[in-house]
């Protein structure tokens, strides 16, 4: 406990004197003693002033602690006065005297002020909105129905993203709430910290609860190197980034930094100068621990280029199996790499075209590998399949997945991807082969192949056709390979044909706000679901997505859905009311999003870049 330092009081306080004088007077009147209200102290110090000469506070405390029965208190006792009362008198005077004479404490060391944040402050309405959004993060009580009020927690990520794009900084007074929110929800961290800017990092150094914000930002070691300037590296990215322009600083941080700092440094450097990052990694590669090597290798995914091949090729002989597998995966994403060539050679020897097969014309024949030799293992093929899968199909899948897709056209009679997919496949290998091609299309970001593998969304049997039993194909991942507008179109048609039950993850990879054919088809599907008489919470996932992702302009069109309709024959009891409530919430949320958006738009038009589509987490 601190209190301001005290010096000996020079001013006795008038009120205390008055009341203690009262004590004396009343005591005197009862005992009939002399008129002197201030008898001389018995101590050796002569009475210099009319007031009692104060005994040191510590002595009073000691006397009080021991009790006046055991020790005579170091205070003046008036005739007839009890020693304990005299001690209390003296303590009262001393207490008030010390309180009245409080002096300032010596100031601690001043911290370096937070670096200036040149970004403009939020418009007032947006600032209040953020306060509301952050205040809501506690969430509603468990089990309570959501009612018609928008779920503010779910809108926070969108708000943060938009505010970040508009180039605003967060209001200072809201930084603690913003840091707390980022602490509680890792998904918010990047956007929240970017908006919070340098002052939040400055603040995080003062509070252990917010240390997460410094992790990976390099700010801790920056703070340690106090001579360095702490200003933002450049105007438009207030996010903390290590100063990668300073080779000496980079080298020191790489050699002395914590693991997270080093990963962050490598990632940042990789984005700016891929080759420099690789060179940095090479300097210490041999001495890194296996887990660390894996993480570092993973950071090369960004900006992967043929220049990385020699290093990756070398890593195929790494001591750690996981490092070897990652190196192989990275190499297979480089179509011109030697590994890709080796894999293609193996895969092509397994998959061929049989022009004479049966009545339907040519067909693909598959002869899966019979063994997983050392060469294959070195190139990252895992020899042991997961339980329930045959070895040979397991090996085949890995070979095809790592084979450049471009080579198949030549191998299979000059056909384009769509024609290849249409070919019959012998001996039930079709699912296995198409799954492997799907993984390859995702890995190699090949839109033509993805399109061919997805096929036409509205085909009646599409669901079963594209993902037959036993297939591990991930349609949502395949969709990510397509351009945004095509993606939305495909999902819209899929929903129109098959309803919402399988659409949740596909919707999750579509750009926000949903493009028009998509938005309409989701709303139509919800309307159909209502007419079918089920409860809306069977669709709460899609409903929640729609609240966050539908274009706010759709709100007016949705208004008519918010009325309570007559429940159809055989509907679940009360479902009509719940649906009306769910649609009310949907419309309310969309309106709120439109308002939020407007609040973040400066009246003079956006100063920086306009909003670009954001993708929800996949």
């Amino acid at each position: 406990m601190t209190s301001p330092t005290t010096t000996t009081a020079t001013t006795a306080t008038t009120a205390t004197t008055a009341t203690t004088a009262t004590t004396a007077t009343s005591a005197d009147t009862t005992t009939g003693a002399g008129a002197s209200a201030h008898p001389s102290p018995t101590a050796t110090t002569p009475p210099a002033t009319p007031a009692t000469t104060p005994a040191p506070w510590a002595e009073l405390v000691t006397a009080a602690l021991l009790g006046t029965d055991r020790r005579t208190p170091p205070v003046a006792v008036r005739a007839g006065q009890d020693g304990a009362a005299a001690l209390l008198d003296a303590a009262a005077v001393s207490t008030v005297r010390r309180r009245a004479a409080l002096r300032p404490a010596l100031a601690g060391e001043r911290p370096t002020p937070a670096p200036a944040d040149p970004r403009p402050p939020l418009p007032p309405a947006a600032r209040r909105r953020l306060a509301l959004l952050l205040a809501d993060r506690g969430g509603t009580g468990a089990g309570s129905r959501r009612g018609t009020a928008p779920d503010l927690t779910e809108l926070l990520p969108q708000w943060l993203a938009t505010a970040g794009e508009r180039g605003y900084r967060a209001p200072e007074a809201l930084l603690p709430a913003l840091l707390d929110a980022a602490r509680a929800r890792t998904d918010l961290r990047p956007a929240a910290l970017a908006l919070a800017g340098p002052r939040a990092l400055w603040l995080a150094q003062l509070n252990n609860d917010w240390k997460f914000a410094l992790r990976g930002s390099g700010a801790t070691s920056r703070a340690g190197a106090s001579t360095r300037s702490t200003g933002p590296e450049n105007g438009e990215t207030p996010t903390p980034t290590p100063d990668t322009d300073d080779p000496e600083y980079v080298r020191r941080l790489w050699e002395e930094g914590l693991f997270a700092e080093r990963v962050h440094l490598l990632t940042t450097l990789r984005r700016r100068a891929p080759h420099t990052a690789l060179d940095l990694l090479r300097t210490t590669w041999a001495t890194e621990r296996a887990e660390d090597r894996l993480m570092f290798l993973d950071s090369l995914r960004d900006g992967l280029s043929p220049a990385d091949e020699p290093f990756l090729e070398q890593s195929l002989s790494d001591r750690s199996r996981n490092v070897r597998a990652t190196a192989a995966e990275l190499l297979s994403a480089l179509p011109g790499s030697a590994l890709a060539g080796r894999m293609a050679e193996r895969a092509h020897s397994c998959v061929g075209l049989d022009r004479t097969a049966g009545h339907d014309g040519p067909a693909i024949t598959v002869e899966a590998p019979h063994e997983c030799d050392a060469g294959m293992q070195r190139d990252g093929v895992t020899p042991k399949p997961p339980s329930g899968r045959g070895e040979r199909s397991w090996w085949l899948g890995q070979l095809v997945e790592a084979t450049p897709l471009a080579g198949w056209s030549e191998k299979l009679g000059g056909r384009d991807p769509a024609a290849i997919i249409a070919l019959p496949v012998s001996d039930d290998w079709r699912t296995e082969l198409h799954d492997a091609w799907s993984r390859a299309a995702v890995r190699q970001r090949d839109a033509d192949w993805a399109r061919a593998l997805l096929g036409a969304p509205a085909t009646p049997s599409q669901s079963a056709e594209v993902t037959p039993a036993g297939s591990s194909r991930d349609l949502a991942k395949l969709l990510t390979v397509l351009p945004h507008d095509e993606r939305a179109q495909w999902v819209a048609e899929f929903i129109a044909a098959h309803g919402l039950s399988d659409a949740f993850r596909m919707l999750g990879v579509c750009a926000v706000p949903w493009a028009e054919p998509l938005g309409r088809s989701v709303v139509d599907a919800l309307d159909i679901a209502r007419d079918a008489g089920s409860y809306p919470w069977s669709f709460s996932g899609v409903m929640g997505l729609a609240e966050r992702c539908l274009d706010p302009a759709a709100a007016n069109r949705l208004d008519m859905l918010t009325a309570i309709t007559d429940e159809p024959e055989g509907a679940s009891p009360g479902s009509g009311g719940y649906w009306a409530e769910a649609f009310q919430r949907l419309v309310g949320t969309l309106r709120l999003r439109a308002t939020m958006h407007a609040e973040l738009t400066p009246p003079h038009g956006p100063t920086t870049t306009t909003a670009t589509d954001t993708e929800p987490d996949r």
Partner: protein
Amino acid sequence: MNPQGERWTTDQVLALAPDEASRRAGGKLAAPGPWSETGADDSAVWGQCKGSGKKPYQAIVDITGPAFKCTCPSRKFPCKHTLGLLLLWAGDGGVVTAGEPPQWADEWLAGRRVRAERSARTTSGGGAPSRTPADPEAAKRRSERRLQRIAAGATELEQRLTDLLHSGLASADGAQGGTSWDETAARMIDAQAPGLASRVRELGSAVASGPDWPARLLEECALLHLLDQGFLGIEWLPAPLAATVRSRVGLTTEAADLLTGPDAAPVRDRWLILAQHDSDDGKLITRRIFLRGERTGRMALHLSFGGPNRPLDLALPPGLLLDADLAYYPGARPLRATLGERHAPAAPGPVPPGVGIDAALAAYGDALRDDPWLDSWPVVLTDVTPIRGRDGENWQLADADGESALPLDPRVLGRTGLWHLAAISGGAPLTVFGECGHRGFLPLTAWDPTPVSL
């Protein structure tokens, strides 16, 4: 907030919320969904909010007050429905439109107008004693009996304190043979001295309260002894000090008498709201509103209490300027005051001018000259920077010169207010209002430059 129907800002509305939970709940209700029959005119906003029950709650706000009315059973004041309604109105989403109040709202609003006119008449009537006791003789006898009982209580307490000092404070720690402090506090309640009772309860918590507890216990015992002695010898005290002792012991003064009684001396000024701070001890919500007069420079503290079936009746967000009469409770160092007539609607005020650390400590010291029982005195500090103290644990406010600092009250540690303060400052000087006392400085409001409650 002006009577010409200008909308409040959402900030102003949120500042009215009694706590974080209400703010959140109000924010949730700030959507058109549950509302019906909403409307607003120049001086009021109203609406019906569908709650869990069959009948919707009727929420009405007189924005000239501001005053709130809601048919919900909440003891929060203002409740989440009135907050939601105001937020909806402040958000200007076109939901709350201008109109005439419906009958259910108009009844209450009209009642307020009538009451306001009546009280204005009685105030301007002047001189007329507000309330004459039915039987002055009986009232006098009752009051004398009470004084005797308090005196008996004070004497008993003196005995208890001297007994403690005889056997030593060490005996207070655990195995003391005598009665516990709680029992003594109950005796003081019986003696009709609630002020003494609450101080005695404080003693109980000072025992064994970490290092240095004997010093703290001795301080509190000594000040309690001083109060006992002051009351027992009250006829020898100067009148203002006697009034202070009376109120510290727990004898109250009727607020109405302060404004309209024969000795009424209301102070008219433009009062800047410096802070509104609620504390809840589980039974009672105490709302403290600090004000400072622009012309007089005087500090004032308005207290209101809320509990079950008794909502708080006043909400004033920091930063407002209120042209009103204020009447101080009597005392050697008047601070507590009651709000009288308002002469104009509240309007947003400026960032208040403040003083440095030396002056703040001097102000506390000076106040102690009049009222030795003061734990703190309200001050506005200007150009101070929140920094960590030399021990690296506690916080201080460093003066502009950088040499001297005022430690923050340790109670602020672990409160979010400390971090708001640090965030707003960012290592740069700022203006902050709070209570400066022997435990340090307890910050209540900081300006960024809009007031932020800490």
